[in-house]
């Protein structure tokens, strides 16, 4: 049992609150990604868990045991840093071995573990190479291998692929993915990159302003954002938010964005913002029975050649993604359709409202 539980964990730097009373549990055998923009407190939170930062308030529990006052070196955690840390002037194998010696692992066991982890990470051939000769990607692999070989109860990763060159990023990501599939420990991974988070996480803890906004599996986060921030942050480009663009009366939502009113099931009276993802907006060159005419203000090319359209209706600007071919034909006009089931509603605080929309 080595769940990591944090209770009311806070950290202030002077007047700046980096982490504000965060409580949550990171489950054993789960990869939890702390995702958020720079400055949201994710790294500080991780550093408090490992003990490199002293919390202003709150507790850190590992397997139910309070370690808040325990020194970092005694917490039996492993951590991979953003900057690839290797122990200089020695071989890869020796790098992996050093912490094992410190942990008083027997010689035979050391060799076994090193071979095992080198195999998983595909660095068996490098074991006798001096680490100074490796590039950043190689060094980071060594750092990952070193921490994995220690078999700590908790493994932490602080943006481990940020300082790796573009071409090696993918390979390292793959290596991490395969490592994560092998490990049954508690893994906490910090990143600001949604792609990394979506690809590696079992659970994503989305952070903003020193707080965890939402903790959920990637697809839940994407399909059921808890607030506008989550809707915007996950998605490329982020969700469109249309403020004051609709009226709900007696369970019926009418909006210039919709050709016909739709029914709303749920307590949607407070809703003031309508959210829709650009990839969920249907757009065509020709009008059809349930489309609405909009102006195309700009078009560019996006992922996979798709056309990213910037559209306008009633003074509301928003984006839609359509396929390359039809996008090219939409030069100044387009006809859009918003599927009711893909519409989200948010209240004035930006919190999501649980409601179901469906066509008449």
């Amino acid at each position, binding site marked *: 049992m080595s769940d990591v539980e944090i209770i009311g964990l806070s950290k202030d*730097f*002077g007047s*700046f609150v*980096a982490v504000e009373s965060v409580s949550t549990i990171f489950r054993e055998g789960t990869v939890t990604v702390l995702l*958020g*923009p*720079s*400055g*949201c407190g994710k790294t500080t939170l991780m550093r408090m868990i490992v003990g490199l*930062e002293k919390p202003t308030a709150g507790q850190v529990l590992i397997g139910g045991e309070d370690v808040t006052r325990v020194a970092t070196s005694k917490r039996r955690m492993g951590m991979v840093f953003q900057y690839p840390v290797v122990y200089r002037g020695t071989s890869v194998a020796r790098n992996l071995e050093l912490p094992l010696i410190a942990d008083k692992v027997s010689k035979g066991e050391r060799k076994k573990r090193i071979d095992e982890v080198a195999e998983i990470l595909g660095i068996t051939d490098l074991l006798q190479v001096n680490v100074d000769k490796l590039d950043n990607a190689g060094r980071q692999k060594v750092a990952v291998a070193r921490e994995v070989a220690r078999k700590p109860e908790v493994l932490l990763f602080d943006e481990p692929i940020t300082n790796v060159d573009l071409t090696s990023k993918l390979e390292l990501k793959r290596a991490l993915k395969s490592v994560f599939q092998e490990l049954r420990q508690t893994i906490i991974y910090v990143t600001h990159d949604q792609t990394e988070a979506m690809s590696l996480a079992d659970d994503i803890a989305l952070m*903003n*302003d*020193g707080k965890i*906004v939402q903790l959920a599996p990637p697809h839940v986060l994407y399909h059921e954002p808890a*607030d*506008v*921030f989550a*809707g*915007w*942050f996950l998605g490329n480009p*982020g969700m*469109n*938010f*249309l*403020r004051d663009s609709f009226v709900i009366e007696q369970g019926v939502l009418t909006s210039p964005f919709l050709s016909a009113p739709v029914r709303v099931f749920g307590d949607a009276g407070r809703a003031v*913002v309508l959210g829709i993802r650009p990839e969920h907006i249907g757009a065509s060159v020709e009008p059809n029975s349930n489309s609405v005419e909009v102006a195309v203000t700009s078009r560019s090319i996006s992922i996979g050649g798709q056309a990213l359209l910037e559209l306008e209706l009633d003074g*509301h*600007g*928003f*984006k839609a993604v359509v396929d390359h071919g039809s996008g090219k034909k939409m030069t100044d006009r387009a006809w859009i359709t918003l599927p009711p089931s893909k519409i989200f509603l948010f209240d004035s605080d*930006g919190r999501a409202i649980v409601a179901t929309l469906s066509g008449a």
Partner: protein
Amino acid sequence: MTTPDGTSSADLPSVRLGEASQRDRRWTLASLFSWVVALIFFAPIAWIAMSAFKTTGQILSVPPLFIFQPTLENFTEMFQDPKIPKFFFNSVLLSVGSVLIAIAVSFLAAYSFSRFKPPGTDFLMFLLLSTRFVPAAAFVIPFFQLFGILNFRNTYVGLIIFYVMFSVPFSVWILKGFIDGVSQRFDETGLVNGASRAHVIFRVVLPQVKPGLVAAFVFNIIFVWNEFLFNFQLGGTDTNSIPVALFTALYQGGAVNWTYVSALGTAYVLPLAVLIYFFQKYLLVGMTFGTVRGEV
């Protein structure tokens, strides 16, 4: 599209993590030992400072006196001697005057070395540094004779010119380091926007190397303040500085006048100690001619 309100946190300034721990002072065994070491190294100077408040008899007493009635007599007596204010005046004039000129001259040269890299830059920089590595005594003779010919001996002009050269190598090295640290993008931003080169040098780059100017200033002041040999040989009663005064005290009237030495010595050390307290972060830059940077 409305930007969600919550995203402003992406724009929060990064916090310097080190600062918080700076406030978190506490005693450990290491800090205790550190203080003991610091006190041991300072003890000899503290003893001289103590002696400055003793009478001759107390200084020469056997066994040495640790507890005594302090007296300011040594200082009052010292400053009644009209030569003493003159020594101080000379020290200040020579050091401040020459260092200011040296820094002005060096800043221009350092800018040229850093930005235009004229042919021979490395060689000139090397020569400059090597002049500071030659034992001072080696140059005393030619200077002695040259200053005789130029009628520079025992004149402020002569000594200031000498000390400018004495301060230039160090200043060029340190300022070049600091100017190298200012991205050329700044110069270019100025030029692209229509600014002249002079504007770039004095309005764009100069304000950004203030720490370098301070470091160069403080350290050259210390070096000139401490310089003895050339002041002794090239100067005279009109232009001698405190080190020479200390030296001559040694040979006044047979025996050393220890009250005078300790009072003058104390008055002379005090500004140095204050300088390194306030400019500690430049200490490393200073002591290594600007070739190593960092804080302690």
